Protein backbone atom coordinates (compact mmCIF):
# COMPACT_ATOMS: atom_id res chain seq x y z
CA UNK A 1 0.00 0.00 0.00
CA UNK A 2 1.39 3.40 -0.93
CA UNK A 3 -1.37 5.69 0.29
CA UNK A 4 -3.33 5.37 3.50
CA UNK A 5 -6.02 7.87 4.36
CA UNK A 6 -7.15 7.72 7.98
CA UNK A 7 -8.80 11.14 8.21
CA UNK A 8 -11.57 11.53 10.77
CA UNK A 9 -11.18 7.99 12.01
CA UNK A 10 -10.70 8.82 15.67
CA UNK A 11 -6.93 8.55 16.01
CA UNK A 12 -6.21 9.65 19.58
CA UNK A 13 -3.95 8.96 22.52
CA UNK A 14 -5.33 5.44 22.92
CA UNK A 15 -4.47 4.19 19.47
CA UNK A 16 -1.60 6.45 18.45
CA UNK A 17 0.75 3.67 19.55
CA UNK A 18 -0.39 1.55 16.62
CA UNK A 19 0.25 4.36 14.16
CA UNK A 20 3.63 4.99 15.76
CA UNK A 21 4.53 1.32 15.50
CA UNK A 22 3.57 1.43 11.86
CA UNK A 23 5.72 4.51 11.21
CA UNK A 24 8.60 2.89 13.02
CA UNK A 25 8.47 -0.27 10.98
CA UNK A 26 7.02 0.89 7.72
CA UNK A 27 9.04 0.42 4.57
CA UNK A 28 9.78 3.09 2.02
CA UNK A 29 6.81 2.00 -0.08
CA UNK A 30 4.34 4.06 1.96
CA UNK A 31 4.29 7.51 0.40
CA UNK A 32 1.17 9.22 1.70
CA UNK A 33 -0.26 9.10 5.19
CA UNK A 34 -3.20 11.28 6.05
CA UNK A 35 -4.25 11.79 9.67
CA UNK A 36 -6.36 14.91 9.24
CA UNK A 37 -9.14 15.80 11.61
CA UNK A 38 -8.23 13.50 14.45
CA UNK A 39 -7.31 14.12 18.07
CA UNK A 40 -3.55 14.29 17.83
CA UNK A 41 -2.07 16.51 20.52
CA UNK A 42 1.50 17.40 21.34
CA UNK A 43 2.22 14.16 23.20
CA UNK A 44 0.86 12.06 20.36
CA UNK A 45 2.79 14.00 17.74
CA UNK A 46 6.00 13.60 19.71
CA UNK A 47 5.31 9.85 19.87
CA UNK A 48 4.98 9.83 16.08
CA UNK A 49 8.17 11.87 15.71
CA UNK A 50 10.12 9.46 17.91
CA UNK A 51 8.85 6.56 15.83
CA UNK A 52 9.93 8.28 12.63
CA UNK A 53 13.37 8.88 14.08
CA UNK A 54 13.81 5.20 14.80
CA UNK A 55 12.96 4.22 11.21
CA UNK A 56 15.88 4.17 8.81
CA UNK A 57 13.69 3.64 5.79
CA UNK A 58 11.27 6.48 6.41
CA UNK A 59 10.43 7.95 3.01
CA UNK A 60 7.01 9.48 3.40
CA UNK A 61 6.43 12.14 0.78
CA UNK A 62 3.14 13.53 2.02
CA UNK A 63 2.13 13.74 5.66
CA UNK A 64 -1.22 15.31 6.47
CA UNK A 65 -1.75 16.46 10.04
CA UNK A 66 -4.16 19.35 9.72
CA UNK A 67 -7.25 19.84 11.93
CA UNK A 68 -5.68 18.30 14.99
CA UNK A 69 -4.86 19.64 18.44
CA UNK A 70 -1.10 20.02 18.63
CA UNK A 71 0.74 23.25 19.27
CA UNK A 72 4.11 24.68 18.37
CA UNK A 73 5.94 22.22 20.61
CA UNK A 74 4.75 19.17 18.71
CA UNK A 75 5.19 20.83 15.33
CA UNK A 76 8.74 21.92 16.09
CA UNK A 77 9.62 18.42 17.31
CA UNK A 78 8.24 16.93 14.14
CA UNK A 79 10.16 19.37 11.94
CA UNK A 80 13.43 18.74 13.75
CA UNK A 81 12.86 14.98 13.50
CA UNK A 82 12.33 15.26 9.78
CA UNK A 83 15.47 17.36 9.59
CA UNK A 84 17.46 14.68 11.37
CA UNK A 85 16.01 12.03 9.06
CA UNK A 86 17.11 14.00 6.05
CA UNK A 87 20.53 14.60 7.54
CA UNK A 88 20.88 10.88 8.11
CA UNK A 89 19.96 10.18 4.52
CA UNK A 90 22.50 12.78 3.38
CA UNK A 91 25.19 11.08 5.46
CA UNK A 92 24.28 7.69 4.00
CA UNK A 93 24.42 9.18 0.52
CA UNK A 94 27.86 10.69 1.19
CA UNK A 95 29.27 7.52 2.75
CA UNK A 96 28.06 5.25 0.01
CA UNK A 97 29.01 7.63 -2.81
CA UNK A 98 25.54 7.58 -4.20
CA UNK A 99 24.57 10.25 -6.69
CA UNK A 100 23.56 13.38 -4.89
CA UNK A 101 19.90 14.09 -4.27
CA UNK A 102 18.87 10.77 -5.72
CA UNK A 103 18.27 8.81 -2.54
CA UNK A 104 17.68 11.72 -0.24
CA UNK A 105 14.64 11.84 1.91
CA UNK A 106 12.67 14.94 1.11
CA UNK A 107 9.03 15.34 1.99
CA UNK A 108 6.96 17.05 -0.64
CA UNK A 109 4.13 18.18 1.59
CA UNK A 110 3.64 18.49 5.32
CA UNK A 111 0.24 19.75 6.29
CA UNK A 112 0.08 21.41 9.72
CA UNK A 113 -2.82 23.78 9.17
CA UNK A 114 -5.76 24.34 11.49
CA UNK A 115 -3.94 23.36 14.65
CA UNK A 116 -2.98 25.29 17.75
CA UNK A 117 0.22 26.60 16.22
CA UNK A 118 0.46 30.32 16.74
CA UNK A 119 2.93 32.90 15.54
CA UNK A 120 5.58 31.74 17.98
CA UNK A 121 5.20 28.20 16.62
CA UNK A 122 5.60 29.36 13.06
CA UNK A 123 8.70 31.33 14.02
CA UNK A 124 10.09 28.26 15.76
CA UNK A 125 9.46 26.12 12.69
CA UNK A 126 11.23 28.68 10.51
CA UNK A 127 14.12 28.71 12.97
CA UNK A 128 14.39 24.91 12.81
CA UNK A 129 14.42 24.97 9.03
CA UNK A 130 17.04 27.71 8.96
CA UNK A 131 19.34 25.99 11.41
CA UNK A 132 19.11 22.74 9.54
CA UNK A 133 19.96 24.36 6.22
CA UNK A 134 22.99 26.07 7.75
CA UNK A 135 24.23 22.87 9.37
CA UNK A 136 23.87 20.86 6.20
CA UNK A 137 25.60 23.40 4.01
CA UNK A 138 28.48 23.88 6.50
CA UNK A 139 29.24 20.28 7.40
CA UNK A 140 28.54 18.30 4.28
CA UNK A 141 28.98 20.81 1.55
CA UNK A 142 25.50 20.22 0.26
CA UNK A 143 23.73 23.24 -0.97
CA UNK A 144 20.71 24.35 0.96
CA UNK A 145 18.09 21.65 0.63
CA UNK A 146 14.74 22.19 2.25
CA UNK A 147 13.40 19.41 4.41
CA UNK A 148 9.91 19.87 3.17
CA UNK A 149 9.05 21.36 -0.16
CA UNK A 150 5.72 22.71 0.97
CA UNK A 151 4.50 23.21 4.52
CA UNK A 152 0.84 23.93 4.76
CA UNK A 153 0.22 26.32 7.64
CA UNK A 154 -3.25 27.52 6.93
CA UNK A 155 -4.82 29.61 9.71
CA UNK A 156 -1.54 29.90 11.55
CA UNK A 157 -0.27 33.06 9.98
CA UNK A 158 -3.00 35.54 10.73
CA UNK A 159 -1.00 37.92 12.89
CA UNK A 160 2.14 37.55 10.83
CA UNK A 161 0.24 38.43 7.70
CA UNK A 162 -1.08 41.57 9.39
CA UNK A 163 2.45 42.44 10.41
CA UNK A 164 3.74 42.09 6.87
CA UNK A 165 0.82 44.09 5.55
CA UNK A 166 1.70 46.91 7.94
CA UNK A 167 5.29 46.81 6.85
CA UNK A 168 4.28 46.98 3.23
CA UNK A 169 2.01 49.94 3.85
CA UNK A 170 4.80 51.72 5.65
CA UNK A 171 7.06 51.15 2.69
CA UNK A 172 4.42 52.48 0.37
CA UNK A 173 4.28 55.79 2.22
CA UNK A 174 8.02 56.01 2.73
CA UNK A 175 8.24 59.26 0.85
CA UNK A 176 6.00 61.09 3.24
CA UNK A 177 7.66 61.01 6.64
CA UNK A 178 5.17 60.88 9.50
CA UNK A 179 4.98 63.88 11.76
CA UNK A 180 6.11 61.85 14.80
CA UNK A 181 9.34 60.86 13.05
CA UNK A 182 10.04 64.45 12.11
CA UNK A 183 10.05 65.32 15.78
Amino acid at each position, binding site marked *: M*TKLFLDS*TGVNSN*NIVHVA*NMLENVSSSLK*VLSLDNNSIGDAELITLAQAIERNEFFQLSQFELSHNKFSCQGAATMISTLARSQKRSINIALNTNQPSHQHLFRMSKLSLGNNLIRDSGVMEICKCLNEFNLQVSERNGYRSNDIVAYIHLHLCLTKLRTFFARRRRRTWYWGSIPSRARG
Partner: protein
Amino acid sequence: MPENRNEVPPVLFPLCVVLCSTQTMFFLFFYFIFTNFQIDLLTFFKLYELTIPPMLEFGADNFVLGAAPPSSSALFLPPQSFPPTNLISNKQSLFSNSREEVLQRLGEVLLRKSLTIIDLSQRQLIAADAKLVSMALLNNLSLTILKIGFNSLADEGCQALSLALEDHPSLSELEIGFNSITDVGCVAIASAIKFNPTLKILYLSGNAIGPKGATALSQVQFLECLYLTGNQIQDEGIAALCRYRQHQRRHINTNQNHKKHSLTSPQPNPTQPNPTQPNPTHTETFQPPQ
Protein backbone atom coordinates in the same frame (compact mmCIF):
# COMPACT_ATOMS: atom_id res chain seq x y z
CA MET B 1 -22.56 71.87 -22.64
CA PRO B 2 -22.69 71.73 -26.43
CA GLU B 3 -24.99 74.08 -28.24
CA ASN B 4 -26.80 71.34 -30.15
CA ARG B 5 -28.10 68.67 -27.77
CA ASN B 6 -28.01 65.91 -30.39
CA GLU B 7 -24.37 66.48 -30.87
CA VAL B 8 -21.95 64.29 -28.95
CA PRO B 9 -19.96 66.25 -26.39
CA PRO B 10 -16.41 66.64 -27.63
CA VAL B 11 -15.04 65.16 -24.42
CA LEU B 12 -16.77 61.82 -25.04
CA PHE B 13 -16.00 61.70 -28.72
CA PRO B 14 -12.71 59.79 -28.52
CA LEU B 15 -14.31 57.29 -26.12
CA CYS B 16 -17.12 56.61 -28.62
CA VAL B 17 -14.60 56.03 -31.33
CA VAL B 18 -12.73 53.52 -29.19
CA LEU B 19 -15.93 51.67 -28.23
CA CYS B 20 -17.11 51.47 -31.78
CA SER B 21 -13.82 50.19 -32.96
CA THR B 22 -13.70 47.54 -30.20
CA GLN B 23 -17.18 46.31 -31.07
CA THR B 24 -16.24 46.17 -34.69
CA MET B 25 -13.13 44.23 -33.88
CA PHE B 26 -15.11 41.72 -31.80
CA PHE B 27 -17.68 41.25 -34.52
CA LEU B 28 -15.05 40.75 -37.15
CA PHE B 29 -13.20 38.29 -34.95
CA PHE B 30 -16.24 36.07 -34.30
CA TYR B 31 -17.43 36.36 -37.89
CA PHE B 32 -14.04 35.29 -39.16
CA ILE B 33 -13.84 32.30 -36.84
CA PHE B 34 -17.37 30.98 -37.29
CA THR B 35 -17.49 31.41 -41.05
CA ASN B 36 -13.99 30.60 -42.24
CA PHE B 37 -13.20 27.71 -39.91
CA GLN B 38 -16.67 26.19 -39.75
CA ILE B 39 -16.42 25.22 -36.10
CA ASP B 40 -19.13 24.86 -33.54
CA LEU B 41 -19.34 26.46 -30.15
CA LEU B 42 -17.86 23.53 -28.29
CA THR B 43 -14.73 23.49 -30.42
CA PHE B 44 -14.48 27.22 -30.01
CA PHE B 45 -14.48 26.86 -26.23
CA LYS B 46 -11.89 24.14 -26.39
CA LEU B 47 -9.70 26.14 -28.74
CA TYR B 48 -9.57 29.18 -26.54
CA GLU B 49 -9.52 27.31 -23.21
CA LEU B 50 -12.63 28.96 -21.89
CA THR B 51 -14.77 27.52 -19.12
CA ILE B 52 -15.91 24.19 -20.43
CA PRO B 53 -18.30 22.13 -18.35
CA PRO B 54 -16.54 18.93 -17.27
CA MET B 55 -19.03 16.66 -18.98
CA LEU B 56 -17.97 17.99 -22.36
CA GLU B 57 -14.49 16.70 -21.79
CA PHE B 58 -15.68 13.18 -22.39
CA GLY B 59 -16.66 13.80 -25.97
CA ALA B 60 -20.06 13.88 -27.57
CA ASP B 61 -20.47 10.13 -27.88
CA ASN B 62 -20.56 9.46 -24.22
CA PHE B 63 -23.28 11.63 -22.83
CA VAL B 64 -26.12 11.71 -25.32
CA LEU B 65 -28.87 9.61 -23.88
CA GLY B 66 -29.68 6.48 -25.76
CA ALA B 67 -27.49 7.29 -28.72
CA ALA B 68 -24.08 6.24 -27.57
CA PRO B 69 -22.36 4.22 -30.27
CA PRO B 70 -20.62 0.99 -29.29
CA SER B 71 -17.24 2.50 -30.01
CA SER B 72 -17.29 4.91 -27.09
CA SER B 73 -15.50 3.61 -24.04
CA ALA B 74 -16.96 5.62 -21.20
CA LEU B 75 -20.34 6.03 -19.63
CA PHE B 76 -20.65 9.34 -17.96
CA LEU B 77 -23.81 10.66 -16.46
CA PRO B 78 -23.59 14.16 -14.97
CA PRO B 79 -24.33 14.47 -11.29
CA GLN B 80 -27.79 15.50 -10.36
CA SER B 81 -27.23 17.41 -7.20
CA PHE B 82 -24.89 20.04 -8.57
CA PRO B 83 -26.77 22.89 -10.23
CA PRO B 84 -25.68 23.16 -13.83
CA THR B 85 -24.28 26.34 -15.27
CA ASN B 86 -25.90 28.09 -18.18
CA LEU B 87 -23.75 26.20 -20.59
CA ILE B 88 -24.65 22.82 -19.19
CA SER B 89 -28.35 23.54 -19.08
CA ASN B 90 -28.73 23.15 -22.85
CA LYS B 91 -27.12 19.76 -22.74
CA GLN B 92 -28.92 18.84 -19.54
CA SER B 93 -32.17 18.53 -21.40
CA LEU B 94 -30.71 15.63 -23.34
CA PHE B 95 -30.72 13.49 -20.27
CA SER B 96 -33.42 14.03 -17.81
CA ASN B 97 -31.96 12.89 -14.56
CA SER B 98 -34.67 10.53 -13.46
CA ARG B 99 -33.56 7.26 -11.97
CA GLU B 100 -35.52 5.25 -14.54
CA GLU B 101 -33.53 6.79 -17.36
CA VAL B 102 -30.30 6.10 -15.57
CA LEU B 103 -31.28 2.48 -15.24
CA GLN B 104 -32.36 2.42 -18.87
CA ARG B 105 -28.98 3.75 -19.83
CA LEU B 106 -27.33 1.21 -17.62
CA GLY B 107 -29.33 -1.48 -19.35
CA GLU B 108 -27.92 -0.30 -22.66
CA VAL B 109 -24.47 -0.53 -21.18
CA LEU B 110 -25.01 -4.19 -20.53
CA LEU B 111 -25.15 -4.78 -24.25
CA ARG B 112 -21.79 -3.15 -24.81
CA LYS B 113 -18.62 -4.92 -23.85
CA SER B 114 -15.89 -2.37 -24.35
CA LEU B 115 -16.47 0.20 -21.64
CA THR B 116 -13.50 1.31 -19.58
CA ILE B 117 -15.09 3.85 -17.24
CA ILE B 118 -18.48 3.87 -15.57
CA ASP B 119 -19.36 6.90 -13.48
CA LEU B 120 -22.67 6.58 -11.69
CA SER B 121 -21.97 8.87 -8.75
CA GLN B 122 -24.93 10.64 -7.16
CA ARG B 123 -27.58 8.78 -9.13
CA GLN B 124 -29.81 7.76 -6.22
CA LEU B 125 -29.08 4.12 -6.82
CA ILE B 126 -30.39 1.69 -4.25
CA ALA B 127 -29.36 -1.80 -3.28
CA ALA B 128 -31.50 -3.44 -5.95
CA ASP B 129 -29.71 -1.46 -8.68
CA ALA B 130 -26.39 -2.91 -7.64
CA LYS B 131 -27.33 -6.10 -9.49
CA LEU B 132 -27.40 -4.14 -12.74
CA VAL B 133 -24.04 -2.60 -11.92
CA SER B 134 -22.57 -5.98 -11.15
CA MET B 135 -23.93 -7.32 -14.45
CA ALA B 136 -22.31 -4.36 -16.21
CA LEU B 137 -19.08 -5.29 -14.47
CA LEU B 138 -19.32 -8.89 -15.54
CA ASN B 139 -20.10 -7.96 -19.14
CA ASN B 140 -17.38 -5.33 -19.47
CA LEU B 141 -14.19 -7.14 -18.72
CA SER B 142 -12.08 -4.20 -19.90
CA LEU B 143 -13.56 -1.86 -17.30
CA THR B 144 -10.88 -0.07 -15.27
CA ILE B 145 -12.75 2.54 -13.23
CA LEU B 146 -16.11 2.15 -11.51
CA LYS B 147 -17.50 5.12 -9.61
CA ILE B 148 -20.72 4.57 -7.69
CA GLY B 149 -20.19 6.91 -4.77
CA PHE B 150 -22.87 9.05 -3.13
CA ASN B 151 -25.65 6.54 -3.63
CA SER B 152 -27.59 4.31 -1.25
CA LEU B 153 -26.24 0.90 -2.11
CA ALA B 154 -25.82 -0.18 1.52
CA ASP B 155 -24.64 -3.64 2.52
CA GLU B 156 -26.97 -5.54 0.20
CA GLY B 157 -25.63 -3.63 -2.77
CA CYS B 158 -22.07 -4.34 -1.73
CA GLN B 159 -22.81 -8.02 -1.44
CA ALA B 160 -24.28 -8.02 -4.96
CA LEU B 161 -21.23 -6.15 -6.26
CA SER B 162 -18.76 -8.42 -4.55
CA LEU B 163 -19.77 -11.32 -6.77
CA ALA B 164 -18.66 -9.39 -9.83
CA LEU B 165 -15.54 -7.98 -8.20
CA GLU B 166 -14.03 -11.27 -7.27
CA ASP B 167 -12.46 -12.27 -10.54
CA HIS B 168 -12.60 -9.09 -12.54
CA PRO B 169 -9.48 -8.97 -14.67
CA SER B 170 -9.01 -5.22 -15.24
CA LEU B 171 -10.78 -3.11 -12.62
CA SER B 172 -8.17 -0.90 -10.96
CA GLU B 173 -10.23 1.77 -9.21
CA LEU B 174 -13.42 1.34 -7.25
CA GLU B 175 -15.19 4.28 -5.67
CA ILE B 176 -18.03 3.40 -3.32
CA GLY B 177 -17.80 6.17 -0.75
CA PHE B 178 -20.85 7.63 0.97
CA ASN B 179 -23.08 4.61 0.46
CA SER B 180 -24.08 3.80 4.03
CA ILE B 181 -21.92 0.70 4.05
CA THR B 182 -21.29 -0.97 7.38
CA ASP B 183 -19.02 -3.79 8.43
CA VAL B 184 -21.10 -6.41 6.60
CA GLY B 185 -20.74 -4.78 3.20
CA CYS B 186 -17.11 -3.94 3.78
CA VAL B 187 -16.27 -7.52 4.73
CA ALA B 188 -18.04 -8.74 1.57
CA ILE B 189 -16.02 -6.40 -0.63
CA ALA B 190 -12.77 -7.10 1.18
CA SER B 191 -13.17 -10.84 0.84
CA ALA B 192 -13.99 -10.41 -2.86
CA ILE B 193 -10.91 -8.34 -3.64
CA LYS B 194 -8.58 -10.09 -1.22
CA PHE B 195 -6.62 -11.83 -3.93
CA ASN B 196 -7.49 -9.55 -6.84
CA PRO B 197 -4.18 -8.25 -8.20
CA THR B 198 -5.61 -5.56 -10.48
CA LEU B 199 -7.60 -3.46 -7.99
CA LYS B 200 -5.26 -0.79 -6.66
CA ILE B 201 -7.43 2.09 -5.46
CA LEU B 202 -10.41 1.72 -3.16
CA TYR B 203 -12.50 4.65 -1.94
CA LEU B 204 -14.59 3.82 1.10
CA SER B 205 -14.81 7.26 2.68
CA GLY B 206 -17.95 8.48 4.38
CA ASN B 207 -19.43 5.12 5.21
CA ALA B 208 -20.14 3.52 8.56
CA ILE B 209 -17.37 0.97 8.52
CA GLY B 210 -16.32 -0.29 11.92
CA PRO B 211 -13.37 -2.27 13.26
CA LYS B 212 -14.43 -5.55 11.66
CA GLY B 213 -14.52 -3.99 8.22
CA ALA B 214 -11.13 -2.36 8.74
CA THR B 215 -9.68 -5.66 9.89
CA ALA B 216 -11.04 -7.34 6.77
CA LEU B 217 -9.55 -4.60 4.60
CA SER B 218 -6.18 -5.00 6.26
CA GLN B 219 -5.97 -8.48 4.77
CA VAL B 220 -6.37 -7.32 1.18
CA GLN B 221 -3.08 -8.02 -0.47
CA PHE B 222 -2.60 -5.92 -3.58
CA LEU B 223 -4.27 -2.65 -2.62
CA GLU B 224 -2.18 0.50 -3.05
CA CYS B 225 -4.48 3.35 -2.02
CA LEU B 226 -7.09 2.99 0.67
CA TYR B 227 -9.40 5.86 1.56
CA LEU B 228 -11.18 5.39 4.86
CA THR B 229 -11.95 8.98 5.72
CA GLY B 230 -14.81 9.49 8.12
CA ASN B 231 -15.37 5.91 9.17
CA GLN B 232 -15.58 4.73 12.75
CA ILE B 233 -12.88 2.13 12.56
CA GLN B 234 -11.90 2.73 16.21
CA ASP B 235 -8.81 1.48 17.98
CA GLU B 236 -9.11 -2.08 16.79
CA GLY B 237 -9.43 -1.10 13.15
CA ILE B 238 -6.52 1.33 13.31
CA ALA B 239 -4.42 -1.33 15.00
CA ALA B 240 -5.30 -3.88 12.32
CA LEU B 241 -4.44 -1.54 9.45
CA CYS B 242 -1.17 -0.45 11.06
CA ARG B 243 -0.24 -4.05 11.85
CA TYR B 244 -0.82 -4.90 8.22
CA ARG B 245 1.67 -2.24 7.17
CA GLN B 246 4.28 -3.59 9.58
CA HIS B 247 3.78 -7.08 8.27
CA GLN B 248 4.30 -5.83 4.74
CA ARG B 249 7.60 -4.24 5.71
CA ARG B 250 8.83 -7.41 7.37
CA HIS B 251 7.77 -9.37 4.39
CA ILE B 252 9.58 -7.07 1.98
CA ASN B 253 12.83 -6.63 3.87
CA THR B 254 13.35 -10.18 5.07
CA ASN B 255 16.15 -10.84 2.62
CA GLN B 256 17.93 -7.57 3.31
CA ASN B 257 18.39 -7.98 7.04
CA HIS B 258 21.61 -9.94 6.71
CA LYS B 259 23.12 -7.14 4.63
CA LYS B 260 22.60 -4.52 7.31
CA HIS B 261 24.47 -6.32 10.10
CA SER B 262 28.03 -7.50 9.81
CA LEU B 263 29.53 -10.27 11.93
CA THR B 264 31.40 -7.80 14.09
CA SER B 265 28.36 -5.72 14.91
CA PRO B 266 26.22 -6.76 17.86
CA GLN B 267 23.33 -9.02 17.06
CA PRO B 268 20.05 -7.20 16.74
CA ASN B 269 17.31 -8.01 19.15
CA PRO B 270 14.77 -10.37 17.61
CA THR B 271 11.37 -8.83 17.14
CA GLN B 272 8.95 -10.14 19.68
CA PRO B 273 5.47 -10.68 18.28
CA ASN B 274 2.32 -9.87 20.10
CA PRO B 275 0.94 -13.32 21.02
CA THR B 276 -2.62 -12.08 21.26
CA GLN B 277 -2.65 -10.78 17.69
CA PRO B 278 -0.87 -13.18 15.40
CA ASN B 279 -0.88 -12.60 11.69
CA PRO B 280 -3.97 -14.33 10.35
CA THR B 281 -2.46 -15.61 7.14
CA HIS B 282 1.06 -16.56 8.26
CA THR B 283 0.81 -17.44 11.89
CA GLU B 284 3.93 -19.56 11.82
CA THR B 285 6.13 -16.56 10.88
CA PHE B 286 5.38 -14.71 14.07
CA GLN B 287 5.76 -17.44 16.64
CA PRO B 288 8.19 -16.46 19.41
CA PRO B 289 11.54 -18.25 19.25
CA GLN B 290 11.82 -21.40 21.33
